């Protein structure tokens, strides 16, 4: 009986919590009205500070559309004859991949229909296009076979930015409905999602890190599918943007180019949030620091900069929340940043 009583107590505590939540809500709603500090002669209001989610986002785009900031997205079909190896390095010959399904998805994404959908994504919601089609991109007009029992399941290993921006949730249902496939999306940082494919757990990858993609091809993990002329099918891009507090203490807005901007941040030791998770964004960021700093993905390389360089090791959205919180600079893909701002800095 004692147990039941304590359980009921716990229930009541939760109910009380809910009540507090409800009571706090109106306070949060009225807070933005007083957005300027109260004049000195007025007695200071004894109200609690407004919750963080009522604040307007201060972090803003300071540097964009620089050629060094292009964020290229590529599709790579995983090669069924790739030199797969198990954890001990022994060759594994009979890894089963759905090559038909992978080719079908690639051909659809590169078809007129798929490209048009991708190019239009985001305009309705954010008033801006989130992805741009590349000039001279591969285009497919191959006929797409309907799914069969064997080819139905397609495993796509991709990066969080593509998934979190909502692009896949917008594109894939169209493809699935039309041809009867089921696409299983495994989303992680580029490093992890490529590793997942190398373990034979993906039929194709959609990533954004040229260096890692080239290594993937070099190692024989990708192949040229029928009708294409390269393994790496780079068909769309957008821009990374350098964001930071609107006050811009490092003056990156006036920097000649993005490399100069990064140098200004490092010179002034202004707080910078790094993804630190081996993602495409992380790889890009590393390439933008002045070479003499020697920053790489290894923790060892930035141990002297920990007073301003924050390696967060988490997703893009979580890093943006941190940057907003710490008034820090951050490199992000534009799509995630726009989503962040659209949600008043709380990410949905």
């Amino acid at each position, binding site marked *: 009986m004692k147990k039941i009583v304590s359980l009921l107590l716990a229930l009541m505590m*939760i109910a009380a919590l809910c009540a507090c939540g409800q009571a706090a*809500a109106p306070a949060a709603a009225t807070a933005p009205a007083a957005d300027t500090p109260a004049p000195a002669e007025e007695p200071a209001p004894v109200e609690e500070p407004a919750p963080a989610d009522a604040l307007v986002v201060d972090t803003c785009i300071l540097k964009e559309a620089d050629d060094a900031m292009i964020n290229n997205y590529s599709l790579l079909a995983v090669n069924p004859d790739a030199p797969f190896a198990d954890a001990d390095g022994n060759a*594994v010959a*009979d890894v*089963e991949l759905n090559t038909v399904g992978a080719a079908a998805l690639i051909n659809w994404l590169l078809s007129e229909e798929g490209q048009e959908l991708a190019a239009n994504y985001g305009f309705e919601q954010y008033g801006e296009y989130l992805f741009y089609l590349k000039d001279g991109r591969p285009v497919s007009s191959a006929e797409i076979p309907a799914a069969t029992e064997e080819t139905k399941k397609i495993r796509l290993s991709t990066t969080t930015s593509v998934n979190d921006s909502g692009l896949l949730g917008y594109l894939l249902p169209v493809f699935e409905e039309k041809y009867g496939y089921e696409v299983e999306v*495994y989303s992680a940082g580029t490093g992890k999602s490529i590793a997942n494919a190398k373990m034979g757990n993906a039929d194709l990858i959609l990533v954004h890190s040229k260096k890692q993609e080239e290594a993937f091809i070099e190692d024989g993990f990708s192949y040229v599918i029928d009708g294409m002329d390269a393994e790496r099918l780079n068909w769309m891009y957008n821009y990374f943007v350098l964001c930071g507090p609107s006050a811009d203490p490092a003056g990156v807005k006036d920097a000649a180019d993005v490399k100069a901007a990064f140098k200004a941040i490092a010179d002034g030791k202004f707080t910078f949030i790094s993804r630190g998770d081996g993602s495409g964004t992380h790889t890009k960021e590393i390439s933008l620091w002045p070479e003499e700093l020697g920053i790489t993905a290894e923790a060892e390389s930035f141990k002297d900069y920990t007073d301003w360089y924050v390696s967060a090791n988490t*997703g893009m959205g979580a890093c943006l929340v941190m940057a907003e919180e710490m008034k820090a600079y951050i490199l992000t893909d534009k799509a995630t940043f726009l989503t962040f701002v659209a949600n008043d800095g709380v*990410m949905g």
Partner: protein
Amino acid sequence: MGSSVRKAIELILSADPELLNILSTTARVCLTSSILALIIGVPVGILFGAERFPGRKILLVLNRTLIGMPPVVCGLLFYMLFSGVGPFRHLKLLFTVKLMIIAQVVLITPIIIGVMETFVADTAPALRETARGLGFGRIKEYRLLVNECLYSIFSAYLLSFARAIAEVGAVAMVGGAIAWKTNVMTTAIMMYTNRGSFTLGIALGLILLTLSLIVNIVLSLMQGRLSR
């Protein structure tokens, strides 16, 4: 917290199909794995507690070590084993609910064995002396022993269900948190946290806690009846 609570209530009221899918996957994984673990763990735990056989102590030490195994290590192990290049690749179980259940059974069974072993080792000698003194056979002796255990079986189950529903490391590794397929509450919370959607993460957390509370209340009521 206020906005999270509001969000949680909104989410439940809206009967968002993705949330419902996550909830049903969570229920399927946790209930199946904890019940399977119970089916395996209870007899093994009772045997470990009631019988003395060579190697028992070593097995108990191993079992205690397994109780302390970090879920992510368990997940990683199963990821490697069932990966496209792993030895069990032909079973095609990676990123399926089945493998999530298997990984959780491996995580939880040692807990049940541990709880049962401790209880039975405490109870069995006195019960056995009395049962043998009365001239009962071994089958009747075990039937009486199991009857003694019912209460602690519930405790073991509550513990293992709690572990199953709260665990994220193993299910994230072997399930891959694939939407509409292997995404459960904990992996969804992780995902939203990584995305920076803290409010949504906490909202899901509150729903998870509430569900856990309901399950616990029901089981505790049943347990209360048993002790009478």
